[in-house]
């Protein structure tokens, strides 16, 4: 009954008025961010991190706020998918397939309520899963030495690149670019500056928050300006809000299946919520017997499955992030940046040394789910109204917030210019279909990856075969190779709609 005792301790942390307020505020902000087209969870969390620092929150509180935003954005993404046929974020893409047809048939309110309940089922069960799985994985993580960690980082890059991009060379390049940027600055082991070209500004490396906000938020500004305000919100009427009891009952099995699929997809390093919702939808379509042809025309199960799947993946992605320090998705990569900036090193030790952080977070996530259920079912009207904020007001606003946030961190114009450079880079890369999430991962994990390689070589005195000396390491290497190569062959089967980078 370890877990119950830990959870009690967690609730003691989470139920303080400040933490509770942060969770509720985070849920609200997150749902708004998720529902606005073009502002996904990773964007939203990235923009808000600098602001969270200025509030002077402690580690647990900052983490609770940001994960509440993360969960909220996952819930909110479905709103514009259903009403406008524009996914509010990448994982919500699959929800447009049946959600928008349902809205066209005058059942928008039903679709919103159903998907809200599905999100709750997925996210709630995944949080329970996180609670049970994370301590187990943390125990396994004790078996990890530097050789295993090196292979694990490699696995994260390979699966992230292999699964989320259509071109392996571009995905691998993105990872290499991130790693290359991470090398700039003082060498961890010797203290000698590397690749700084004598610039003092570069001595302590490139701040990953600058890169993240540039690659995500500023690049989005350029994309938006180019597209000339595509997808501006249009007036939508909701009709009466009732609970579609029949739909919820008939699609409950779909929600449970989707949750299981999504949770597993989330745990895989680098796969993330887009894959979770995709697999959940395809799985549900595959097991459907008498109504297979109604998928894509407004089948309630086609709404429930991807929503349960992507919210479950959101919870699952937290498992490797907390236990191994290897994020399971783009947004958890941004959350990892938050942890590192707060001076918290995720990994197995986190569970022993800072239990109040881990269990406070888990308790706060459980609370957040109920808050989100209330916000997204009875109060969904409020967010539908927010959707009608015009882009000419929204976009400059986001730009000013991103700039002020980064400026408040360092007070230097140099970082802002660097952020704009990352923004242009992100724009060009997105045009060329190069994924940007591996770059972030590379910047975040680059130094750890090099350290684990060098430590492994110190242990073995330069013998390279040490990297393959344990069963775990060999397994991770094989999984990494499979994760990178397999999509080359599976691509013709798995025609993915759109690119995925949650």
């Amino acid at each position: 009954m370890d877990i119950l005792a830990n959870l009690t301790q967690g609730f003691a942390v989470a139920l303080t008025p400040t933490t509770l307020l942060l969770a509720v505020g985070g849920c609200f902000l997150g749902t708004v961010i998720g529902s606005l087209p073009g502002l996904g969870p990773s964007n939203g969390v990235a923009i808000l991190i600098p602001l969270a620092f200025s509030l002077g929150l402690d580690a647990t509180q900052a983490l609770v706020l940001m994960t509440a935003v993360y969960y909220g954005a996952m819930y909110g993404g479905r709103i514009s998918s259903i009403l406008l046929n524009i996914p509010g974020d990448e994982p919500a893409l699959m929800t447009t397939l049946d959600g928008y047809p349902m809205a066209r048939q005058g059942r928008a309110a039903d679709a919103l309520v159903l998907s809200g309940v599905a999100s709750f089922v997925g996210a709630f069960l995944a949080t329970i899963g996180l609670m049970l799985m994370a301590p187990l994985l943390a125990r396994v993580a004790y078996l990890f030495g530097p050789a295993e960690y090196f292979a694990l980082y490699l696995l994260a890059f390979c699966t992230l690149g292999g699964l989320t991009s259509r071109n392996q060379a571009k995905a691998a390049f993105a990872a290499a670019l991130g790693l290359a940027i991470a090398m700039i600055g003082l060498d961890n082991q010797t203290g000698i500056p590397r690749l700084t070209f004598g610039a003092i500004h570069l001595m302590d490396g490139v701040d990953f928050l600058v890169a993240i906000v540039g690659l995500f938020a500023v690049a989005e500004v350029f994309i938006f300006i180019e597209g000339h305000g595509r997808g501006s919100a249009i007036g939508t009427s909701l009709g009466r809000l009732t609970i579609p009891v029949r739909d919820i009952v008939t699609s409950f099995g779909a929600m449970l299946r989707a949750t299981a699929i999504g949770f597993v997809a989330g745990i895989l390093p680098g796969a993330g919520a887009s894959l979770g919702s995709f697999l959940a939808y395809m799985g549900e379509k595959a097991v459907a017997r008498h109504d297979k042809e109604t998928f894509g025309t407004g089948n309630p199960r086609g709404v429930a499955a991807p929503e349960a799947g992507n919210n479950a993946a959101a919870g699952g992605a937290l498992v490797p992030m907390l236990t191994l320090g290897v994020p399971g998705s783009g947004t958890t990569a941004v959350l990892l940046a938050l942890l590192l900036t707060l001076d918290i090193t995720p990994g197995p030790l986190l569970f022993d040394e800072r239990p109040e952080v881990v269990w406070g977070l888990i308790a706060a996530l459980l609370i957040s789910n109920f808050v989100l259920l209330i916000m997204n079912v009875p109060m969904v009207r409020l967010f539908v109204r927010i959707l009608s904020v015009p882009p000419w007001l929204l976009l400059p606003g986001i730009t000013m917030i991103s700039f002020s946030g980064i400026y408040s961190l360092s007070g230097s114009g140099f970082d802002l210019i660097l952020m704009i450079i990352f923004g242009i880079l992100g724009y060009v890369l997105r045009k060329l279909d190069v994924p940007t999430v591996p770059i972030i991962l590379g910047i975040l994990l680059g130094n750890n990856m090099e350290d684990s390689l060098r430590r492994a070589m110190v242990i073995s005195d330069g013998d390279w075969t040490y990297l393959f000396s344990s069963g775990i390491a060999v397994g991770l290497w094989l999984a990494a190779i499979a994760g990178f190569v397999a999509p080359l062959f599976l691509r013709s089967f798995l025609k993915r709609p759109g690119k995925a980078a949650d």
Partner: protein
Amino acid sequence: MRGDRVFGLVVTFAALGYIVSAAQIRVGFLSDPVGSRTFPYMIGGVGLLCGLAMVLRPDPDPEWPGPPALVRIAVTLVVLVAFAVTLRPVGFLLPAALASAILAWLIRPDLARAALAGVGLSLGLFGVLKYGLGLGLAPFGRVLTG
């Protein structure tokens, strides 16, 4: 096709440049078996392979922006850089108002709305960020206050 070929070449040369720069990293006399240069060499090598792969097997070209969109993007870039450079010496309010108004105008060419966005966002966000979140923003910089 062409986009990827050009980009692949840029990546290839950048990777070569990276390897050359890595070769210039000073190495202390007491170093571990791997040293400071090996990992950057490996990264440069991966980058080089990726660049060549993009040159040899390019994807279809994306839809590049036409001239009007390019002009809009260029203007945006100038506005953002100007905002970044002036934020410290001039303070938040004026640059934010101008930048917001221009961005709003680029999205919807309507002077009244642009002016509203500029004034509204500049004052509103300053209030929220400075007094709500306690960010260290100055309303007017030393250029204006003397």
